[in-house]
């Protein structure tokens, strides 16, 4: 874990504003999955459109970071930017959209779920590195026990119990928080 990964969103935004390239890398790393999920799971954009929106979100974040009035609102600001650009992409309709357009209420519940997922992911970063690694590989990267076993050099037969143990730790971490769904490092 790099030292920058422990910075709050506000500290990270402030560092980026000074032109710190490492801080910018961390900002992209921190929010890449979130932006990607909003584009692909929240708005069901095709890959080409999702990529355009993804790059535009970070371009605008980079160029307009000095306009962010409250640095601790970095995540909601990025979320809003992403949602607006997804809607622009859909309304431009430059590329064919998926056959079944999601209904507004489905979209809104998907977006709420993505926010909740982000909060859970933030909690994962507080777990021991071995837990972070195994949970990420199994759930987010959808790797099989066999792949995890080979890449982490641990017996395949112990993976299920490791995952269960890490999930328990994660649950304890989340249940120890007072506001689990804000999802920001404040």
């Amino acid at each position, binding site marked *: 874990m790099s030292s920058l990964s422990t910075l709050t969103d506000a500290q990270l935004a402030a560092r980026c504003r000074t032109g710190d390239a490492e801080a910018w890398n961390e900002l992209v*790393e921190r929010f890449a999955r979130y932006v990607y999920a909003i584009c692909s799971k929240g708005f069901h954009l095709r890959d080409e459109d999702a990529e355009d929106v993804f790059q535009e979100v970070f371009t605008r974040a980079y160029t307009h970071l000095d306009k962010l009035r409250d640095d601790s609102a970095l995540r909601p600001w990025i979320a809003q930017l992403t949602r607006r650009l997804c809607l622009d992409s859909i309304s431009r309709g430059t590329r064919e959209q998926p056959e079944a357009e999601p209904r507004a209420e489905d979209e809104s519940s998907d977006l709420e779920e993505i926010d909740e997922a982000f909060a859970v992911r933030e909690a994962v970063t507080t777990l021991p590195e071995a837990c972070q690694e195994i949970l990420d590989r199994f759930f987010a990267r959808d790797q099989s026990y066999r792949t995890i076993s080979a890449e982490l050099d641990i017996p395949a037969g112990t993976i299920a119990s490791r995952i269960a143990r890490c999930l328990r730790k994660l649950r304890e971490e989340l249940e120890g*928080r007072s506001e689990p769904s804000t999802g920001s490092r404040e």
Partner: protein
Amino acid sequence: MTRFYEEETLGSLLRMLPPAPEGWVQAAQELPRARQSLDEIVARAEADLEFRTALVADLEAALAQEGVEPDRHLIEELKRRFGS
């Protein structure tokens, strides 16, 4: 208020955030360098009519000649600025 999570729910939420494609992340991380290239190109085009003419005539060739990789977003931004 504390929220209680089933482990199955946690698994589903973790699945909601797969990694973004590596190339997208890398391109976003290289933005500061790309913006710097862009600013330098724009400044030069504003000061150097010959370079500006070459840029408008064939953007990609002019960039390649300067040793700048003609990245898609850079090209689009320059097209927008110079209307080529």
